[in-house]
Structure formats: C-alpha cells, structure tokens
C-alpha cells in the first residue's frame, strides 16, 4: 500500500506565545517546533497499515520554509520511507492554497491513501484535508477515530456531538485522523541514523492565489478572574447568590 502523510510543522503549544511587532505573527524568539499533534497520529496510522500489509511505503509531504526539513527528518526517523518538501518561504494561513500545492504533488502519484491530521494545532481550521480530497476528486472521511481496511474498501468511525457515525468508502481515499486512534511511536536511535540517508525531494510549492490572510494577531483578553468567593462549603450560598445576581447565569 502506498500512503502519503501530509504533515505540518507547528510551534509547541505549551510555550508562552508573544505577538511580533507587525501584530500579525508570533514573535519567533524562543519558539520550538514539532509535528502537529493529529498529524503524528496520521503518520502512525500510515506506518501500521504498511506494516500490516507487509509491503508499500509511507511518503511524507510537508509545505514550508527550509526549517520544516527538521520536522520531515523526524518523521523519517519515526519510519516514513521518503519525503517531499514543498518549499514556500511562508506557510499561508489559507488552507485552500495549501490544498492546491498538495493536490498538485499528489495528483496521479498513485497513492492508495492520503492521510492528514484532523486539523493543525496552530491554525486549528481543519480545512486542508477535505479541500485536497475535493481537488483530487477522491472519497474523503474526516476526523476518524477508528479505521479498518480490507479488499480495497475502508470502514471508519467518526465522532459527532453525542453520536458516532460508521462510514464506508472505497480506496483510493483521503482520510483525516483524530487523536487517540493509535499511540504514536517514538523514533529509535537506529531510525534517527537511517533518516539522514532517506530521500528528501525539494520542490516549489504551487500555492496559487491566497485569499485568506491574518489581519491581526492578539493574545486573548485576560479574564478578570481570580476572585475567590471563599473556602469550603460555607462559601456555596454566596457563590450561588453571585451566579444569580451578578453573573445572571442561573
């Protein structure tokens, strides 16, 4: 099985962010990067499917500046066979531009499955996977929490609000993966050594026109919280009074 996994390099979310002087980007000082959480699950799903079948390969695709090659090498160390770096000086916010660049590379490349994380943890939009599927005219299932594949067909489960959908689809297909589906493995020392020699092709990203941009970026207003009503259960009546008369939520 030939599987493409589209990864995004994102800042580590545990960090304290500050806004750059242009008011539309993050201050790069002190930022550290990692593979977006959900994309890590997508990579694990791809590796397991190839291992189960005993043949095929996982190819990693990543759009971004030269810095993303470090992220790509991580994915190669974890187990991907080779990678394509679609080079762009900046990664636009516009998911449709990214989808166009990926679709141009994936078109006619003979992948059985194209995997994405459910969304990137930085932009939190979840648009690139389904948009890429539409551009390629491939069946697509988003936010999978479980999947099985047999005889060229897949069965997937996805969580809705208060319910779960079972979805069937034919391959080739585009899938976006929710977290928790399979615990991602760590890179072994042997994998890290091997990754240095794995093929990494660099091509220009064909992003096309960008129609969605970041106008401003701001830190959320600090909640004026921190008000301790009291200690122990004796504070309960006062809390309830405040919820009724001040917050007016009861």
């Amino acid at each position, binding site marked *: 099985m030939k599987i493409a996994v589209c990864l995004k390099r994102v800042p580590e979310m545990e960090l304290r962010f500050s806004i750059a002087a242009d008011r539309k980007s993050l201050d790069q000082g002190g930022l550290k990067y990692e593979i977006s959480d959900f994309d890590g699950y997508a990579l694990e799903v791809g590796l397991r499917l190839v291992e189960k079948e005993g043949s095929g390969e996982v190819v990693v695709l990543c759009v971004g500046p030269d810095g993303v090659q470090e992220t790509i090498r991580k994915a190669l160390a974890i187990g991907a066979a080779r990678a394509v770096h679609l080079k762009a000086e900046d990664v636009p916010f516009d998911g449709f531009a990214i989808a166009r660049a990926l679709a141009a590379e994936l078109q006619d490349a003979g992948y059985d499955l194209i995997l994405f994380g459910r969304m990137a943890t930085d932009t939190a939009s979840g648009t690139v996977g389904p948009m890429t599927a539409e551009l390629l005219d491939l069946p697509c299932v988003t936010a999978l929490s479980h999947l099985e594949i047999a005889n060229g067909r897949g069965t997937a489960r996805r969580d809705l609000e208060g319910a779960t959908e079972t979805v069937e689809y034919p391959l080739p297909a585009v899938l976006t993966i929710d977290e928790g589906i399979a615990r991602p493995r760590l890179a072994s020392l042997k994998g890290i050594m091997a990754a240095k020699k794995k093929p990494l092709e660099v091509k220009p990203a064909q992003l096309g026109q960008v129609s969605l941009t970041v106008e401003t970026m701001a830190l959320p207003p600090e909640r004026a919280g921190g008000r*301790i009503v009291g200690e122990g259960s004796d504070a309960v009546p006062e809390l309830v009074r405040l919820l009724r008369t001040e917050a007016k939520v009861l």
Partner: protein
Amino acid sequence: MAATFAFAESRDGNLRKVAFETVAAARQAADATGGGEVQALVMGAPGIAARAEELGKYGADAVAVVEDAGLERYSPEVFAATAAERLRAGEYRAGFFAASAQGRDLAPRVAARLGVSLASDVTDFEIQGDAVLARHPAYAGKVILTLRLVGTPALLSLRPGALVAVEQTRPARVETVAPAMTPDKARVVVTEVSQRSAAKLDLGEAPVIVSGGRGLRAAENFKLVEDLAAAFGNAAVGATRAVTDDGWRPATDQIGQTGRVVSPSLYVALGISGAVQHLAGMRTAKTIVAINRDKDAPIFKVADYGIVGDLFEILPRLTEEIKKVRASQ
C-alpha cells in the same frame, strides 16, 4: 442585491441549534450589507420540510429543502454537491455553515468545489467592503486571530454557541428542490449512526457544563458531577484529558485543545487544575466557576468565581443549593 446563504444542519428529522445560529448569523451579515435575502438550505429524509419554517424565526427569507429517503443520514458528497450548486447559482455575497462535526466536514468541501477559501471555526465576523474580517481562536486558544477573507462568496463556518441566535421573525418561503446528485451515486456512505447518550444534552449545545478532573479521584465519584448536572437541569458533563485517558469517562467527553471546544454560559470546573490544553477548550465560556483544593491552581486565574476546598464536602452542598434555586424558578 446579493443574498446570503446559510446551511441549516439537521439530525434525526429536527433542526439543530447550530442551524438557528447559522441562519441568525446570515441575517446579521445580510442586514450589515443593505438587507438582502437570507436563503437557507436544509437537507434530510422526507419530513424535514415541515421544520423549514422554523428558520423564518431567525431571519430566513427563503428555505430550499432537499428531501430524499437516501438522506436520512449525512451524505458528504450529496450535501457538498447540492450546497455548492446552490451557492454557484445564487451569486451570494457570503455563505455560512456551522463548525459542528458535520459542518467541519462539509464546509471545506463546498469551498473547494467553488474554488474559494473558507474561514473556519469563527467566533465573530464583520463585513468590510470587499473583505470579511473573521475572528478565530488558534494556537490552543492562546492567540486570537482576525482573518481577512476576500472573494465571493465568502464562506465561513461558525463555532457552535459563539454567536447568539437572535430571533427576528420573517415569513419564510419554503420550496422543495432536488439534490445535485442522487444519494445512491455517493462513494462515501454513512451506514450507521449510533447515539451515545440520546437523552443527555450535548456539550456543544448545553448552556451549562459541569466538568470534572483528576481531583475527583475515581471514576465512581463522577456520580457527584452528574448529580450537579442533573440539579441544573440544562447541563452536560465534561471531563479533562487526564480523566478520559484513564477511562473514567468516554473520550468524547473530553474538553480541551484536542477534544471539544465549548462556549457555554456557565462552566463549572471541579477538581481541574487548569492545564493550558484544557483552558483552550473552555476559556470562552461566559462565566467560569472553579472548585479546587489547591488555591494556587491555574484554573483560579481564569475563573470568575472560585471556592477553595474539599470537593467532596462542597459538591453535595452546591447540588442542594442549585436544586433550591431551580425549584423556585
């Protein structure tokens, strides 16, 4: 005058709350640009047309209804093809979807079919001439972006609960239309929908969320959380990732960066320390209450009201007090 499009989501023959929010947002957009029509689209199994008029209450002027026995469940390809066809035919200035589980699947497909971009999971928006400015929390909710979207139609998906569905009744014309493709031609087929907790309110729709963390100490102690939710009468139960990872609660109850992102009127955090990943999922709640034994827990920095102390002592008393309040209402 350009019209505004709204996709009105339904499930099991009923419109969902997000459908009204979506139509109300479209009304707001239309009024801000000279008061053109709001034209909604509803898709479902036969019988859904009977619900269409309800959308007039939130400002829809016209509702196109697609009824087909093959649309009892969501069909991504049929829905996307039909929504794209309507949007293409109508010369719309803007189109609104819900950023619900279904809408997050549907809206990007429709955008790609139309060859336009999508502002996703938007909490507020403003139309400014040729551009739409859309607010979108990103980076685990730690950064608020204002996005600039150009082109027509401008497509947006709206975070459930972020915009209030203001009533603004209009007589809605209802017309039945055919789907853009027949459901039996779809490659992707939803074969089953299993309700997890049909009787309970969904986290995305409940006005009150009562949420528990590790401080509950054991799965069986969530009974206390459920009792409090029951006392409110309009509450859903959520949990932290630590709790769902430990299997105390189902993964679908998880609130946070990698789980559900919610904006209820009232969020009650019980035994939750307030890790950034959790805060990402609930910091836009209108009012936050925290009860925790550690007075230095970060949750108190975002909580409007806090009580420091032993949950197991405080919780039963709170449940009693809420019951009294509800009984008097």
